[in-house]
């Protein structure tokens, strides 16, 4: 038994020691791994990537979407193929719904010289009208631009990393799941933040190779795309919707897939004709199974072809606009 005062001295001493060790771990973790700021590791990794590797003032093109944006458009290739795109940034996040993509686009304000936005999407991204909870774009913008005060940054990182068991788990998974280019969880960004996959012919993906998605699309998803287009036009930014290809065999075999793609295209056409923007339909590309990782995700070879087509459309559209003095 201790005297209560002595007991408190021991208690506070122990807590102080644990607190110091924990703070050291958190600091070290946030330097080496994506700090869990959001509830998506690919989002966290992207925020850290932009903060450390991107000059926000240089970016002229933003790519956004789910994994369909992350894997199917290669920013570095886009810079090579297009005359107009000089500095691309792929802000896509795994599993982002259309409404979440709209939320991600709120980060575009951190890049003052953006001239175009490419929303890379497949109809299968649209079934849910889900948003990120507790989303604070202002803090994230400042984080990416290194503009948070030391106190605000410490607070953000403490809130992000204080769940140490979670961080330890993330640390373990990082190498095995997120640094392997033959896994869909790969997060090895190119210099623009894109993730070209090295998965060929649906190896090991089972039903994801031969089962089509149901053609469910939430109406709110289309409203979100309309809002994105309208906002882009208001800010003088070109808005492109890149409708990514579906595995050709499934496209030709299943009427439900063809109907869903047509329905999506019709809806987008009516949106862009009202709010501005360009629909890039990529189903027409002459792709085969060697260029697909699964039914909707392209591997690096397929993504290069899709990116080339996007680049060609951008150049053509913006040259025409220039000639017409728009």
């Amino acid at each position, binding site marked *: *038994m*201790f*005297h*209560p*005062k*002595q*007991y*408190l001295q*021991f*208690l506070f001493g*122990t*807590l102080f020691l*644990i607190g110091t060790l*924990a703070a050291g771990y958190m600091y070290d973790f946030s330097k080496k791994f994506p700090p*869990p700021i959001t509830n998506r590791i690919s989002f966290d990794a992207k925020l850290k990537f932009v903060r450390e590797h991107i000059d926000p003032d240089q970016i002229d093109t933003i790519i956004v979407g789910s994994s369909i944006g992350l894997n199917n458009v290669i920013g570095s290739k886009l810079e090579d193929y297009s005359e107009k795109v000089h500095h691309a940034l792929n802000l896509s996040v795994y599993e982002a719904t259309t409404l979440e993509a709209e939320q991600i686009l709120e980060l575009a304000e951190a890049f003052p010289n953006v001239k175009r936005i490419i929303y890379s999407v497949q109809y299968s991204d649209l079934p849910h009208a889900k948003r990120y909870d*507790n989303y604070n774009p202002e803090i994230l913008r400042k984080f990416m631009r290194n503009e948070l005060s030391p106190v605000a940054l410490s607070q953000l990182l403490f*809130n*992000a990393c*204080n*769940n*140490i*068991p*979670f961080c330890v788990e993330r640390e373990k998974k990082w190498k095995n799941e997120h640094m392997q280019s033959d896994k869909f969880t790969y997060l090895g960004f190119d210099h623009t933040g894109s993730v070209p996959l090295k998965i060929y012919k649906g190896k090991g993906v089972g039903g994801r190779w031969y089962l089509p998605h149901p053609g469910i699309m939430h109406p709110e998803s289309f409203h979100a795309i309309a809002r994105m287009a309208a906002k882009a036009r208001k800010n003088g930014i070109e808005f492109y919707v890149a409708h990514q290809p579906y595995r050709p065999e499934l496209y030709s075999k299943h009427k439900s897939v063809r109907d869903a793609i047509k329905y999506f295209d019709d809806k987008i056409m009516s949106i862009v004709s009202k709010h501005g923007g360009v629909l890039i339909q990529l189903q027409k590309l002459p792709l085969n199974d060697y260029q697909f990782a699964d039914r909707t995700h392209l591997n690096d070879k397929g993504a290069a072809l899709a990116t080339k087509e996007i680049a060609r459309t951008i150049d053509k559209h913006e040259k025409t606009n220039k000639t017409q003095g728009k």
Partner: protein
Amino acid sequence: MLFNYALGKELASPTKLKKVSKKTLLIIGIAFNLLLLGYFKYMDFFIANINRVTGSKIELLHLALPLAISFYTFQQIAYLVDSYREETKEYDFLNYAVFVTFFPQLIAGPIVHHSEMMPQFANLRNKVKNYYNIAVGLFIFSMGLFKKVVIADTFAQWATQGFDVSKELNMLEAWVTSLSYTLQLYFDFSGYTDMAIGIALMFNIKLPINFDSPYKATSIQGFWRRWHITLSRFLRDYIYIPLGGNRRGELRTYTNLFITFLLGGIWHGAGWTFVFWGILHGGALVIHRFWKQLGMRMPKLLGWFMTFMFINIAWVFFRANSFEDAIKVLKGMFGGKIVLPAWLHDYFSINNEAVQFGNWSKLFSQETYLWLWLLAGMIVVLFLPNSMQWKARFKPSLFYLLLTVLFFLSIFMLYRKSEFLYFNF
């Protein structure tokens, strides 16, 4: 607060008022408090129901609910009523303000009574640093933190999955969902109360006990003597007894009991599911009283089982966002697909849609430790001492020091951000 303090003073003054009677003043005071509460908490509920009944399209106000309004409204009404009964003393305004806004218990209780708090605030000895109280306070606080952050938030994930995410539940999933919520609510709310008691104790202020192992209760009456004790106390002293309590015959007693719990349900939230929850508990208490009047007895174990099952089912309505959600869970619990182990398939050639073999849950299949958590949760609530019993046993020894440190480690689980459930009430 100023209004209530001034009114309380006036009501407590023994001099006879000339123009307005004390009763009128009391009615004005209570109405003022209830109107404020009604406006902020129940206005949208009221408008939504008017719209539903009349087909009108009055816009909802979407008012931000002032933090803890239900708690301090009750405390101030109690103060006014006791002033009217001339049971209050000459209180200092500063102490009154601390009583109403005392931060440890402000947002989720315990609901404190002026007679137990104001003398403590006024006592000069309580202004002297007390190392023992700080040590106990830290221990109880850390225990509450652990209950909230580690236990309640773990169960919260499964409860949320079942109530808010899944559209249909099989029998096992539905029971996991409802039990998870039953445990989540207890650990969340009692954890919060422990934190409040712990912090207050560091300032030498003793808050009243609010939970006394409620899930050990063997009757519904016993449950309400152990669950949110300070709310039950308020309902008894300021609603049940003024309605007549049990002094006006059996039928009137049943009615009073029922009304008290109906109002208790409404106090918890602006929604028909809360009203229904209040009706269920009011009804259960009436049946329990009737059973006792008949002089009938029940084996303790059966009594516990029935009480726990009833509480578990009633919490479904308390938690569900709508009756549809509640019915979804109840349908799963009592009419959902029965899940049997896969290996039994060879022994029973049942070709029935009501039975499934193996693959017990798509919803929870990733949760390896779910059953262990549920089992451990039940053991803790049924067999281990509660935090007040721990508090009584506390000694500044190595064991309690290590336990406190261990509990404080739960601060490293804070990432699973979630609000305290009782913040809304």
